[in-house]
């Protein structure tokens, strides 16, 4: 629903006049209101001579929303402008119902070559913002014409996908340096791929790469535990490996089947022949996918570092009785002929689908633990308030290999300070928490063991014996006894986290060794217990609800969450530099909502 045309804001008018005063800018039509934006049609004359891919003068529709706060887009006009997609530009598709094309210029990319032509940061005040964009647009035109929009060393960018459907689910895959190396060792240039879907997930997953005989091909895809809940998608995919991203020219990906075939045969691969060869497995009336992979570097001009996948949805191929006249049902030659004439004609517009690399390296920019810490095999004993907070923190900052031990079930009272939700009531805490944590990361492998570690067990559970970091958050002395009695052949980092009454303190005990040093733990914690027993001695026991009393301890979620978050930093340091002797870190909440960390070392002889 379009809003009625308002009055042209004065600051926009002023800004436009300032822009129009720039060299090379001339206004063709006055501001007009289009649905939700003001549009100015203007002509930009770039610097330099007439030669080059960009005409000297080009027409633009400048689309402005909620000036000066909203977006400013320079769209190539429908006529007298550029039709190809250049770098730093959206896919320059034609648009049926607007007088402009869809190739909006990217004028605000930080650190790009554009920065060298116009002042660094985008000013947001009304007088300067629009003229700044015009200056940038003029700069863009000049660089585009010189082919200088990208420089060696700039981060590599993928060309934008033309005609991208916004409603289709993206195709998610996992690729990293290791998988790229595996691809390089393989000889196959094409094959099949098994796709999967997970009930709640709005994406398709590339579960497994297969060769033409449907046997597993390398690399193996390292999906985490959440993918075990996947079902095979009804559709499948063909994959093809090229040497380079198949651009037509500049940043223009093929728009039609004919262009794609041409672009790939320029690289020596006949994509049509590949599809025809593999088509017999895809003739079921469904629309399957074509995955096109090519190696890309991290930075332009750099060595290839990653396999990047493009994906398009194939039309439904000839099958059954949809045959060429004169050929029997089932005759492959006939199907191929019909495909060439109807489904995969040169002018068939390609139905590109967005792809996403869900590898951990791609998701790490917002902040994760260093890899030496992330790669530990962690066993967490106790999935209560403290355990669930520590677990959620650890998984979000990148820990993938986590085993949870807890025998208890989630009750309504727990929700006040647990990371689980109403959905999980009545379930075992470890099971529900593992399920939740496996949904935090596509590569997480969190397992649940719905039992508590007991001192009378004959031997340690296997998952516990294989851990490299054992984190006790059970608050139970029996668990510590079991860890003390156990023996790990390789030294393991032991951590024990518990809080005091009202979560005033978090005690984090850290020791490295072949078993948990319970003596040292008791000795180091005792002075703290003595000190704070006085504090809570006057409090009544806490009752919750009606009925028989059971032990409940007070501790607010925000307090626990702060302490748990702070503890992660201590854990990170302990894993990176294991202490030579046991240490006790006491995190204390101060009166002004800060947290102080105090640490002591274990001094005595260990006999």
């Amino acid at each position, binding site marked *: 629903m379009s809003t009625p045309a308002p009055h042209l804001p004065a600051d926009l008018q002023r800004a436009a006049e300032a822009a129009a005063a720039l060299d090379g800018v001339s206004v063709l039509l006055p501001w007009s209101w289009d649905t939700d934006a003001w549009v100015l049609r203007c002509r930009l004359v770039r610097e330099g001579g007439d030669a080059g891919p960009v005409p000297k003068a080009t027409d633009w529709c400048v689309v402005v929303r909620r000036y000066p706060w909203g977006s400013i887009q320079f769209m190539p006009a429908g006529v007298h402008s550029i039709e190809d997609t250049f770098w730093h530009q959206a896919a320059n598709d034609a648009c049926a119902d607007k007088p402009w094309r869809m190739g909006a210029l990217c004028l605000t990319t930080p650190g790009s070559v554009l920065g060298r032509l116009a002042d660094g940061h985008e000013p947001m005040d009304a007088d300067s913002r629009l003229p700044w964009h015009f200056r940038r647009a003029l700069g863009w035109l000049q660089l585009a014409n010189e082919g200088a929009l990208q420089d060696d060393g700039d981060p590599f960018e993928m060309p934008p996908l033309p005609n991208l459907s916004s409603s289709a689910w993206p195709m998610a895959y996992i690729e990293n340096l290791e998988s790229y190396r595996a691809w390089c060792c393989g000889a196959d240039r094409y094959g099949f791929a098994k796709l999967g879907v997970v009930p709640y997930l709005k994406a398709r997953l590339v579960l497994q790469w297969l060769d033409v005989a449907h046997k597993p091909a390398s690399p193996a895809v390292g999906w985490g535990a959440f993918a075990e809940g996947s079902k095979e998608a009804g559709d499948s995919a063909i994959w093809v490996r090229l040497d380079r991203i198949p651009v037509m020219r500049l940043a223009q990906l093929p728009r039609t089947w004919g262009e794609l075939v041409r672009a790939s045969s320029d690289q020596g691969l006949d994509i049509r022949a590949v599809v025809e060869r593999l088509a017999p497995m895809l003739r079921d009336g469904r629309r399957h996918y074509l995955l096109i992979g090519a190696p890309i570097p991290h930075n332009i001009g750099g060595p290839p570092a990653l396999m990047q996948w493009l994906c398009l949805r194939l039309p439904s191929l000839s099958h059954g009785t949809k045959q060429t006249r004169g050929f029997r049902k089932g005759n492959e030659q006939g199907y191929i002929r019909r495909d060439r004439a109807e489904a995969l004609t040169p002018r068939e517009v390609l139905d590109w689908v967005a792809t996403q690399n869900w590898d951990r390296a791609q998701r790490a920019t917002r902040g994760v633990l260093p890899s030496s810490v992330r790669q530990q095999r962690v066993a967490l004993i106790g999935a209560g308030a*403290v355990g669930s907070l520590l677990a959620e923190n650890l998984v979000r900052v990148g820990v993938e290999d986590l085993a949870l031990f807890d025998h208890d079930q989630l009750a309504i009272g727990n929700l006040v300070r647990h990371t689980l939700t109403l959905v999980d009531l009545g379930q075992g805490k470890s099971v529900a928490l593992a399920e939740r944590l496996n949904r935090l990361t596509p590569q997480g492998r969190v397992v649940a063991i719905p039992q508590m570690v007991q001192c009378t067990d004959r031997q340690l559970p296997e998952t516990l014996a294989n851990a490299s970091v054992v984190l006790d958050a059970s608050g139970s002395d029996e668990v510590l006894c079991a860890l003390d009695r156990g023996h790990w052949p390789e030294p393991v980092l032991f951590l024990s986290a518990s*809080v005091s009454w009202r979560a005033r303190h978090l005690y984090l005990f850290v020791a490295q060794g072949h078993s948990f040093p319970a003596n040292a733990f008791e000795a180091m914690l005792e002075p703290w*217990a003595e000190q704070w027993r006085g504090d809570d001695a006057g409090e009544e026991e806490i009752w919750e609800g009606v009925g028989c009393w059971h032990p409940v301890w007070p501790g607010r979620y925000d307090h626990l969450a702060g302490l748990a978050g702070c503890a992660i930093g201590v854990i990170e340091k302990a894993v990176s530099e294991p202490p030579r002797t046991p240490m006790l870190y006491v995190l204390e909440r101060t009166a002004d909502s800060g947290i102080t960390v105090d640490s002591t070392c274990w001094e005595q002889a*260990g006999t």
Partner: protein
Amino acid sequence: MATLVTKFSDFIRDIRPTQGQRDDMKQGHTVLRNRLSEFDDLQDILVSDFLQGSYRRSTAIRPAEGCRSDVDIVVVTNLPRPEDDPVGGVSPADALARFEPFVEKYYKGKWRRQGRSIGIELSYVDLDLVITSKPASKDVEAYKSAAALTSVGLEEDPDWWLSGAWVPIEERAKQVTAAAASADNEWKTSPLWIPDRDADEWDQTHPLSQIQYSRDRNKACGGLYLGVVKCLKWWQRSRSTDMSKPKGYPLEHLVGLHCPDGIASHAEGVTLTFEAIRDVYAAYPIIGGKPVLPDHGVPTHDVLARVTAEEFKCFHSAVVEAAGIAREALDEPDADKSATLWQKLFGLRFPGPPVVKAMGGFTPPSESARPKPTRYA
């Protein structure tokens, strides 16, 4: 006169390597020796391997913060020296090189050549591998005996002796005749040859005789000698900013020479040793020289060879000061004041006088005791 027997026992227990460190050392050398015995390419040249050093003599102190424990292992080979066999003789550098495939296989990335030995860096322990040339043929039986190969230190087995009749402690109780621990029926072994500091030439050493000497001194001092050595080593390390040498074995050697027999307590042993060193070497700092101390097993070696006269002078003046404090502490009848004085020498690890309680006496509780857990999760 307060001898503070318990405090000294506690202190000495606290300055020796921790149980964990001892476990690591034991594990490290046991595994290495097992691997040696299974490494095919070395079987032709291996005669024996045994432990030497402060670990074996039980005179080691806990490593400083950030440092590791050391275990010294001697590997006796049958490689002849060039002096004995001009044709087939092997130089020290070549002998060490023979072991490089072994350490490369099992300790890749963790070993390095250190002049006369191969150092192996494990997580908490450093192993030092010294290679010897062929021993005298009369000594081979001794070097292969159970007595030589045992990894038990002198503290655990003060009755250790180098003889075919030696049996481990746990079996001694069963054997009626095993009580005869006597130096009379010990093997008299000759020194071994190991690479010199730069692995240019073969040089003599006699680790077994050092162990025997320490055993004898310890017996003569009623089992207190090993503790006195540890105390002085700890004292030296706590003063290491003022004086760097002598430390380690040379310091132990000095204690061996000057700790008198028949001491009744560690306190007495420490005091008398300091006083003896102060008095016997009083002249050297004045004339700007240092004494020559022949090694027990190889008398041609001077134990103080690598200590300069200047360093000896600093050492001596520190000993003078220490002797004074120790004598004061030993003669002080009040136990608490004495403990405070000993702390001046050894630092706060020496147990001080107990902290005085603010309140004494028993107060009846005002309400019934309610045990409450103090940690939650």
